[in-house]
């Protein structure tokens, strides 16, 4: 995973709440077996509307999405993160995120920062007053800056460390392989196993 410290890019104001992962990427796009190439699927239904924010010229190359409350609810599909990332987004700021979406983002280097509702309103106004304005997102200081407006955001300390170091979870866990083996040796015999296959009944 690429290290993340400071990102500067065009801010996109998405004035919607409850943006569920079915909106971020509809189910018909989940049939692919690759992990990349989902940019065309991002907000596919909404992009049919010429007035949708990503269809407006200054926002087309956006990389910092500023959204309303409860972003990423619903389905666990990590494809939602892949679609945002493949389109070019590196950061999403919102007052509240769904847990699974936020977890998935952290695994893929997409920063999700929690910003207060009033600061989201200020960011929206600043971005709409000057469409195409860049936002500077500093993970070290946990701040987002648009022109003379700077707002703080929250991110889990551990996720922040992993993002800044660009670390992969599986290698981190495999450092504790002995502890896993010890735990498994103590697993009660009454717990179920899927193998060997049962004989047909």
């Amino acid at each position: 995973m690429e290290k993340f410290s400071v990102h500067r890019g065009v801010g996109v104001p998405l004035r919607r709440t409850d943006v569920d992962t079915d909106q971020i990427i509809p189910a018909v796009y989940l049939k692919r077996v690759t992990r990349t190439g989902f940019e065309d699927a991002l907000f596919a239904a909404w992009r049919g509307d010429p007035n949708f924010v990503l269809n407006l010229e200054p926002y087309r190359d956006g990389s910092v999405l500023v959204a309303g409350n409860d972003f990423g609810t619903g389905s666990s599909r990590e494809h939602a993160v892949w679609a945002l990332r493949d389109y070019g987004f590196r950061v999403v700021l919102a007052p509240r995120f769904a847990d699974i979406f936020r977890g998935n983002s952290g695994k893929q280097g997409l920063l999700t920062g929690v910003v207060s509702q009033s600061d989201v309103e200020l960011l929206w106004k600043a971005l709409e007053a000057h469409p195409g304005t860049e936002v500077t997102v500093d993970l070290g200081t946990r701040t987002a800056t648009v022109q003379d407006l700077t707002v703080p955001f929250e991110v889990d300390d551990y996720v922040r460390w992993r993002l800044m170091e660009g670390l992969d979870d599986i290698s981190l866990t495999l450092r504790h392989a002995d502890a896993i083996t010890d735990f498994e040796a103590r697993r009660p015999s009454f717990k179920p196993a899927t193998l060997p296959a049962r004989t047909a009944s």
Partner: protein
Amino acid sequence: MGRTLAEKVWDDHVVRRGEGNEPDLLHIDLHLVHEVTSPQAFDGLRLAGRPVRRPDLTIATEDHNTPTVGIDLPIADRTSRVQIETLRSNCAEFGVRLHSLGDADQGIVHVVGPQLGLTQPGMTVVCGDSHTSTHGAFGSLAMGIGTSEVEHVLATQTLPLKPFKTMAITVNGRLKPGTTAKDVILAVIAEIGTGGGQGYVLEYRGEAIRALSMEGRMTICNMSIEAGARAGMIAPDETTFAYVQGRPHAPTGADWDAAVAYWSTLRTDDDAEFDAEVVLQGEDLEPFVTWGTNPGQGVPLSGSVPDPAAVGEDGARQSIERALEYMGLAGGTPMRDIGIDTVFIGSCTNGRIEDLRAAAEVVKGRQKADSLRVLVVPGSARVRLQAEAEGLDRVFLDFGAEWRHAGCSMCLGMNPDQLAVGERSASTSNRNFEGRQGKGGRTHLVSPLVAAATAVRGTLSSPADLEPVA
């Protein structure tokens, strides 16, 4: 101080406590796999040269993409076919047991696990699907995960997790006849909102919950994710033990006794404290239906579509206006006046045998309304076989419904079972998001009883609205 059920199950699975701000590393007892969220995870293993650590704690089924008609033919949609074939080759390569289309244990992953007896109390269960919360009905900590986490569990049989907060959802008293588990959970979500459970594990408690069957409890826990919760749980009891006993993977002999002794400790201690609590009274609840585009936008069937003009706060009003525009509804319309084009009975929420029995009981001896189509999709091939053994297929066919093969089907419309633009459904599934059941489709979430009565009358209805069968 005492511990909650969730904390007990958590503590019993800690491989390693995190230091400082590190997460704990939890062992995973059961990993359920399906075709949509696994191909990239298996690819990741291949790239890193890693095996599946515990194929004996992993099981796969085909459900999201599979057709519900003509299952003996090659899958017509090429990308769907490739995804299914990819699951088959991955399972063969990595030694994972797979229940394929045509197998009696094929079906929706959250129906298959419990039916095989693989879901038991006090386990950690994960799957690359948010409705994994279903398995919490057994007193397990069951969570939906993303594909990176699927790869992590395949490689290590563990997950790094930060502790959750706990919320008690207590439903006191008794449910009135005609009020079902689905109505309870829709009312809970309307009460706390789609983000109300964010950061929490919910524990459902109280007399009305205790009185539910295991299948009703699964319906409740299934939709915990729609309230934003990471998981939902119900403490195991005699109902749970009786459901598990005798299933193919249930413990036997001395193992059964040891298991029940352990399972009996899995309840929230009297002196434990929850971080939040919500209380509902069972007698106050009635059939509940959604009017909007998220599962929190619901009202009793006896109510009306909310009037945005009556809402003072700007953001809330805009959100209602937007939902009503998409749904093609006017504020103030009585829910019972809303005409329906398609009734869908199925999904991991309400596709089990008790759901099919309840719906069949309502439609028996009747004819569906001419104006609509009715799809009945069993949650698994075994549920379908059971229903056929009971003659339910004949009841549905005589009613004018389509009797399909098992799968996720119209719940998310990844296969050909979809709504057309502007088409309106009454659906026993779990999500009424824009376009969820097909681009431009409009979904009302309902219980199997309401779905069945709606199929008779053509407008949103409960069995109490029906004339007796002549």
